[in-house]
């Protein structure tokens, strides 16, 4: 089943065309890594998919429900309540966590399910504690984000996104703000989620991780998808010269 369908997205900031005719499908249970040099449009693609940016052209469909469709060469977004409904399908984990500093860990994780999804409090708390335990930060529920390490904060952020029970989870360079040790911490969590068949789209610079964990790798450059396919295929035997050059640079 297709969870996410992006068709022919275009997005410009002023004169700068950041995304040029990008299409992407994500199947249920699939782990997709997006790699590519800085400024290639990876993050913008994620921000368009999570409705943080409005695309200029193209359509966006979650689970068969249209968040935006293309009418006369322009993206037209669905009405507000429809968008609200569609927002429940996905979650996003940021590079710099964006936890709410005035909320404890537990409150960060439980507030949206309780006050946005209006779910039963006890149920949400129980589920949140279980999530925090799975993230190995069950003992930190009464801490404030500033009292945690970056890796712990990112795990809280992942728990916060998971607590909304999304069908698909986006990660925008989840390890870029972390040192190598903490990066491994987060990659471990991502591997765990992948083994549980969580559908994920991950923008990352961790090439080894992309190669070993994802089902598909997408290489973006200059607003285009240059190459995509089986991770071992793309990373070990790139066909495109730009992909070759990039991989050579980052793998040393």
């Amino acid at each position, binding site marked *: 089943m297709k969870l996410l369908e992006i068709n022919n997205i275009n997005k410009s900031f002023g004169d700068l065309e950041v995304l040029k005719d990008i299409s992407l499908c994500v199947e249920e249970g699939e782990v997709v890594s997006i790699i590519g040099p800085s400024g290639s449009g990876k993050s913008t693609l994620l921000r368009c998919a999570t409705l943080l940016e409005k695309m200029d052209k193209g359509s966006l469909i979650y689970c068969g429900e249209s968040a935006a469709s293309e009418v006369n060469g322009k993206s037209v977004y669905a009405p507000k309540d429809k968008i609200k409904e569609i927002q429940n399908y*996905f979650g996003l984990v*940021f590079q*710099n966590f964006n936890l709410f500093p005035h909320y404890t860990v*537990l409150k960060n994780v439980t507030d949206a399910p309780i006050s946005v999804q209006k779910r039963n*409090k006890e149920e949400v708390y129980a589920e949140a504690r279980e999530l925090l335990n799975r993230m190995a930060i069950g003992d930190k529920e009464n801490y*404030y984000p500033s009292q945690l390490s970056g890796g712990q904060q990112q795990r809280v952020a992942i728990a*916060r996104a998971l607590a909304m029970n999304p069908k698909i989870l986006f990660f925008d360079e989840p390890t870029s703000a972390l040192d190598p040790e903490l990066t491994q911490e987060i990659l471990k969590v991502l591997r765990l989620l992948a083994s549980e068949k969580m559908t994920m789209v991950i923008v990352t610079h961790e090439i080894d991780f992309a190669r070993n964990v994802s089902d598909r790798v997408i290489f973006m450059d200059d607003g285009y998808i240059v190459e995509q396919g089986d991770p071992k295929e793309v990373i070990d035997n790139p066909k495109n010269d730009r992909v070759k050059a990039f991989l050579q640079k980052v793998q040393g």
Partner: protein
Amino acid sequence: MLPQGRNPVAIFKVIIMKKKPFIAAIVFIALLIPATITVSGVTLGSVAGSDDNIFSWIIWVISQLSSGMWASLALFALTLIFSMPLGLFVCFARRSRFKVVELVAKFYISVMRGTPLMLQLLVVYYAPYYLFKIPLASSYRFYAAIIGFSLNYAAYFAEIYRSGIEAVPKGHYEAAKVLGYSNSQTFMKIVFPQMVRHTLPPVTNEIITLVKDTSLAFAIAFLEMFTIAKQVSASESNIMPLFVAGAFYYLFNLIVSFVMGKIEKKMNYYTT
């Protein structure tokens, strides 16, 4: 027991509930000072006559000042009560998507900050007469002072709030949006609590300034403490009453900084 989120409202509740004796003591002292002075001043003052010795003379001066002290206190408290919410409203207008609303708010703020408060008080006081030929009642002085101060302080508070709101990282809005918070939920739950914390030090500054600024109400002959101190000083040909008044402003501001310091400490349960 579920952990409660600690928002400013909850914190004030905690302060009030847990520190009842403490709060009561502060309020008691704050009210006791002018009250005892009123009573002792009147009795001692009348017994001691005018200038038997320096002690009884000071008591007499204080008794003269006491009615003005109440007036200053009322002016201070009411101005805060009105200007702080009004400031939030002006701040919203200043940040409005609608250019016209934003421009009106900008103009309002620039006039309020750019002209003397004394002049603004005069305008508020005399406007009903010059605009509508409404005869000036002396009871209106008090209301005019409160209106004038509130309008002026709202402009300053608006800019302080704005700085506090803009200090909230953009990523928090984005996180809130992806989590499905509505705009009002985002403001109430995510932005406002952080804004309160960011703005406590400058708000304390404004409150302290307000304590002293109440003396500007003399411009419309409102009988607050400093107006009376000047009258007493003139009639006694002595500068001492002004210093006595000064001591009271200082004492009152000590209480203000103490209370605000406590609140600030309470709000420091997290760091960014």
